[in-house]
């Protein structure tokens, strides 16, 4: 299925005004920093289009000198990813550094009793992938202290909706400027802000094992999935209406299940209601308010 899909296709109903998007996102990034009392940003740069786009947007909003890009390869990560990430950091002229997460991940899975012996041979790709994502999160939050910057999120709306994220891993951040953009829109905006075309057009991959691509794993192309989610979520179309629009019934039902199953990843965990006022229930404040930046 992915074989017949061109690497970048923008469904017309998903096309956004990229000038307005840049204005809004630039103001959003500056607002988040100002309200939190920070001037700098830390970003995990993978070599993929999502984190590359955010790097360009942050540099555009607050200047490249405020941005630290951290490359966090694992020993099986694609060398091409690293080359692409380095090209982005060089083009932006921001600070960048590389932290090899192999010792962290291997150290854990090599530990006695963790995953059936040395090398963690029994650990599934899912376990290893999730652990890698959380190791990267831990590195970014540590660097946020030394760099004195906020961790910026780079997850897009498509992966958030279908749950193609690791909770408390790649979805952990202080704020996310692109989380309301579908993958196709991320690519459209990436081209507009100057992300190298090779990065925009390459097949998206979580890069958890060699040759992995999102689209092969999910069994559908991003333009198709983005369109389906757009009509379902943003335009509130019923299953019958989606089928009339030409979507396959089986795909609609499958994606519905994925979206419903990932609801927990998009929300703050519930706290048992016991006292008179409970955070997130009936104690409701904006996360930044007068006094909150005093440290």
């Amino acid at each position, binding site marked *: 299925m992915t074989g017949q899909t061109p690497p970048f296709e923008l469904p017309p109903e998903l096309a*956004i005004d990229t000038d307005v998007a840049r204005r809004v996102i630039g103001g959003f990034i500056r607002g988040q920093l100002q309200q939190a009392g920070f001037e700098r940003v830390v970003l995990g740069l993978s070599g993929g289009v999502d984190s590359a786009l955010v790097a360009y947007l942050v540099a555009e909003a607050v200047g490249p000198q405020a941005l630290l890009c951290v490359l966090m390869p694992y020993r099986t990560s694609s060398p091409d990813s690293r080359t692409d990430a380095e090209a982005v950091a060089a083009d932006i002229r921001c600070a960048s550094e590389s932290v090899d997460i192999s010792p962290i991940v291997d150290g854990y899975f090599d530990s006695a009793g963790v995953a059936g012996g040395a090398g963690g041979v029994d650990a599934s790709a899912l376990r290893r992938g999730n652990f890698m994502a959380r190791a990267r999160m831990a590195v970014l939050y540590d660097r946020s202290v030394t760099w004195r910057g906020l961790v910026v999120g780079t997850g897009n709306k498509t992966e958030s909706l279908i749950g193609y994220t690791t909770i408390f891993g790649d979805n952990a951040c202080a704020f996310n400027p692109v989380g309301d953009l579908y993958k196709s829109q991320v690519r459209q905006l990436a081209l507009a802000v100057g992300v190298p075309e090779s990065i925009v057009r390459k097949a998206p991959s979580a890069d958890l094992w060699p040759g992995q691509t999102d689209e092969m794993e999910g069994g559908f192309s991003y333009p198709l999935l983005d369109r389906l989610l757009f009509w379902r979520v943003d335009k509130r179309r019923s299953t019958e209406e989606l089928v009339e629009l030409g979507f396959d019934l089986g795909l609609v039902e499958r994606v519905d299940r994925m979206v419903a199953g990932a609801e927990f990843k998009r929300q703050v965990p519930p706290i048992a209601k016991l006292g008179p006022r409970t955070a997130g229930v009936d104690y409701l404040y904006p996360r930044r308010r007068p006094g909150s930046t005093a440290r």
Partner: protein
Amino acid sequence: MRIALAQIAPRLGDLEANLARHHLLLETARADGAALVVFPELGLTGYLLQDLASEVAMRLDDPRLAELAAATRGLSAVVSFVEESIDHRLFIAAALLEDGQIRHVHRKLFLPTYGLFDERRFFAAGDVLRAVPSRLGFGVGLAVCEDFWHLTVPQILALDGAQILINVSSSPGKDLAATNEVGLGTATSWRLLMRTYAQLTTSFVVFCNRVGVDESISFWGGSEVIAPTGAPVFSAPLYDEGLFCVDINPADIRRERIGLPLLRDERPEFQLRELGRIVAERAGLAEDTTDPGATR
């Protein structure tokens, strides 16, 4: 006549900082020769207050409000804040300050509590809609944001004598579909309805919308002044802060109302009769003529 639109980004929950900014902008506008200065909805407090609302609320006898009013000698200004009534209800209020006095207070009538809005949870809705005479020489009608998404508001204000309809807003922008005029769905909708109101009420429409960011929400600005013909006189840029001065000719109101006497031909008594019937039918006090099966 010169109108100054203060398209600002208030600091969320920081009443003192916002008050200082209002004082400063009033003086700037005065120096620029403005007769009327308009600030956005909740310009004194920020929008997404949640439980902060009670902490930044002011009674109408609050000395800080009196001090702000005192800064309007020789001026008219519209400012907006959280008003706490004597019985401790919180309202989103817009006040017309003139010549040192609080001339009129409008409490937001329609509190959106759907989609990204949750106003009814934190605020009480106003019950009164009045146009007021002003030192500017004609009637003024105040409305706050969502009030303008209800046809009755501009109509009643115009019938009550308003010749300039002032809407102050904290309108969050959404929908960046490339097909939208100016690239923003919210701006397209607002422009359409404001031009329609200006033409149908043959009044000036003045719209002051904030900019800046509260949490996830970005406010889009795009403040406007629209002539009684429905033609825009001025459109402020989207998302930029600024104090924008716009000159209008009040004689345009008379010209348009003579040429297009829509307000003369309005029939409020007939509206009242039909509305009375609809209210009675909805309450089950009369047979529903359009839906005979309706529960009574």
